[in-house]
């Protein structure tokens, strides 16, 4: 999308002062680094490193969840989508928000009560440790990888607009800087440092969006209808306030939207980096409070983006947004410049960078924990490793994952960021959610069912993506020269999610083995009462 647009407006696109943007971002890095250094003083044990000693309060963790969840894709992407496609951009944010009810009602508290550090702890609780752990770690790493790639690729695209760095080399350099900073934060700060970065970033992002929202509304006399009227006038298209501009084109795009909606609403509660956040609080009740805080903050934020999106559509207009170097993603920064000049642009740009930094940090620590705790400590070393050794491996894994994501981010430059994020949601919903739900609520569920569901969901999601128009055959595909796409939809959710649920059931009923009823009873009692749950470490 970004590449295919004409660059007629190039001379008008360099807005603001790159040095000011860099200065404000530098300030953010300096402040958060101090906080991370202070927070990391007690980072000695595995529970400290992976789960921040389980010492955060519900409100703190809820804010951090919002910081983890509101990625650059949802801030820049949704504001841009609403500015250009109107209502259809709003549909995205509703799915992202409603999805939290799955986490609140079905997953958060039960997971907090039964697990220790990772998603695999819960999934393998009453099933066979080795195979289930390996499967759960595989899906965790796959989801984190797609999500990381999306964020790193997004970082490259963002700089072209914000710092005026347009060439490939400069963008790659910025990806290296972002990656190196992220490695530093996670290495030093562990989960505690990562959490504080996310909290600070969430406050800045939500406050920034709030100020801009009030500003935009003030311009239109706090009359939302007048704002919509102005957006219609600028775009010259009254349909911008109704659905259908983006997804209403053909029967296939309509079906694609249902597939996306399914992946969004079921994917959130199965994202490993979101699940891991529930272990940073001392009790299930605090886990519940975390989700409640997260829902309020995320819900308010998405309402702000509705105003900001139409505000950008009204004050800037689709043509100028599309003409800017960042394309759709530039709507929010351009709006900031329009409202508050270079200073507000600098602040919003720094917040956007901070967003990427905080999200990649959260993903990296999740992937590292999964590798060190699940694969290394429990599978390779069969549990015979002291926690210090495990944390050492986790720290090394952080460096490896950081380097991989830098390389991947440079390679994925110019790729469609939204597609990578949607893929991560689809993979999470297909590979993780059925097994999470079954193992928490279905007594007869067994190892074969879990393995079929996880590998079946992961495999089918990835295969369908590989043979979809996002990879080959279409105008915006990764590979445009050949066409091997036989799956018509760009999101696999509508097929892979029901398939994974079905495979989990089928594998279970076809298996001759039964699991230990004592373990099932233990999991159920612990999940609901919280007896014997991991408690906060006291220093």
């Amino acid at each position: 999308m970004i590449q295919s647009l004409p660059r007629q407006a190039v001379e008008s696109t360099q807005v603001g002062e790159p040095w000011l943007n860099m200065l404000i971002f530098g300030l953010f890095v300096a402040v958060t680094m101090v906080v991370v250094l202070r927070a990391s003083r007690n980072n000695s044990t595995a529970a400290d490193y992976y789960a921040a000693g389980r010492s955060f309060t519900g409100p703190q963790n809820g804010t951090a969840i919002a910081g983890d969840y509101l990625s650059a894709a949802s801030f820049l992407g949704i504001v841009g989508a609403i500015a250009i496609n109107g209502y259809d951009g709003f549909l995205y944010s509703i799915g992202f928000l409603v999805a939290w009810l799955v986490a609140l009602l079905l997953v958060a508290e039960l997971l907090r009560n039964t697990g220790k550090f990772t998603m695999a702890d819960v999934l393998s609780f009453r099933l066979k440790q080795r195979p289930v752990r390996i499967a759960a770690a595989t899906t965790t790493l796959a989801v984190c990888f797609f999500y990381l790639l999306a964020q790193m690729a997004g970082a490259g695209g963002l700089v072209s607009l914000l710092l005026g760095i347009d060439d490939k080399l400069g963008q790659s350099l910025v990806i290296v800087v972002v990656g190196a900073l992220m490695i530093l934060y996670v290495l030093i700060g562990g989960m505690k440092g990562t959490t504080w970065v996310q909290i600070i970033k969430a406050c800045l992002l939500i406050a920034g969006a709030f100020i801009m929202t009030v500003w935009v509304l003030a311009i239109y006399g706090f009359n939302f209808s007048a704002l919509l009227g102005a957006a219609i006038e600028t775009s010259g298209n009254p349909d911008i306030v109704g659905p259908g501009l983006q997804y209403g084109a053909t029967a296939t795009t309509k079906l694609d939207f249902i597939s996306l909606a399914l992946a969004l609403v079921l994917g959130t509660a199965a994202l490993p980096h979101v699940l891991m956040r529930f272990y940073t609080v001392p009790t299930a009740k605090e886990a519940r409070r975390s989700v409640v805080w997260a829902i309020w903050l995320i819900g308010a934020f998405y309402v702000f983006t509705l105003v900001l999106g139409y505000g950008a559509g009204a004050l800037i207009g689709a043509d100028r947004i599309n003409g800017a170097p960042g394309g759709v993603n530039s709507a929010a920064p351009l709006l900031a410049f329009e409202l508050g000049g270079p200073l507000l642009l600098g602040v919003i740009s720094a917040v956007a960078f901070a967003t990427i930094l905080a999200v990649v940090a959260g993903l990296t620590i999740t992937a590292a924990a999964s590798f060190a705790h699940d694969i290394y400590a429990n599978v390779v070393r069969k549990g015979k490793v002291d926690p210090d050794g495990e944390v050492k491996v986790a720290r090394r894994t952080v460096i490896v994952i950081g380097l991989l994501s830098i390389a991947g981010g440079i390679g994925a430059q110019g790729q469609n960021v939204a597609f990578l994020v949607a893929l991560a949601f689809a993979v999470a919903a297909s590979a993780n959610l059925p097994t999470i739900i079954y193992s928490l609520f279905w007594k007869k569920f067994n190892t074969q069912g879990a393995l079929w569901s996880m590998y079946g969901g992961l495999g089918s999601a990835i295969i369908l993506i590989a043979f979809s128009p996002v990879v080959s055959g279409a105008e915006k595909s990764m590979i445009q020269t050949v066409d091997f796409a036989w799956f018509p939809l760009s999101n696999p959710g509508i097929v892979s999610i029901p398939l994974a649920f079905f495979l989990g059931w089928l594998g279970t009923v076809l298996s001759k083995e039964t699991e230990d009823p004592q373990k099932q009873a233990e999991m159920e009692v612990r999940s609901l009462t919280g007896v014997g749950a991991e408690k906060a470490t006291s220093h």
Partner: protein
Amino acid sequence: MLYAVQRGLAETREAPNEEVSMGHDPSAPGAPPATPVDFTEVQGRPRFKELRKRHRSFVFPMAAAFLLWYFLYVLLADYAHEFMSTPVFGNVNIGLIFGLLQVASTFAITMWYVSYANKHLDPIAEELRNELESEAPEVFQDGAGGTK
């Protein structure tokens, strides 16, 4: 300080999990003594059954309801453009109100669940937790949950 105890217990808890084939045999070599807590018995207690019933009878219907409500919205936005574009006041149409209603219903369900859990789930969960902890203090002490 407390953590040292917890860590020790946590290690023994992890240790028996390495079996290659069937399940969690408590008599596996290297496993700590079998748990003094019979969870199947706890699972059969009327109070626990009551807790499970209260939890499931709230979350399952509620999950079904909000998913249906959400997909009603998605399908209308996807296939009923005319209806969703019907103006209500000024430039605000049914679609926008419907979308904001989704946000409102999400907030409402959240508050509803929290008040339900505070009133009907937490007291009984705490009661059972205290009961179990006093029955087997050596198992649940310090919350390390060495339950194998």
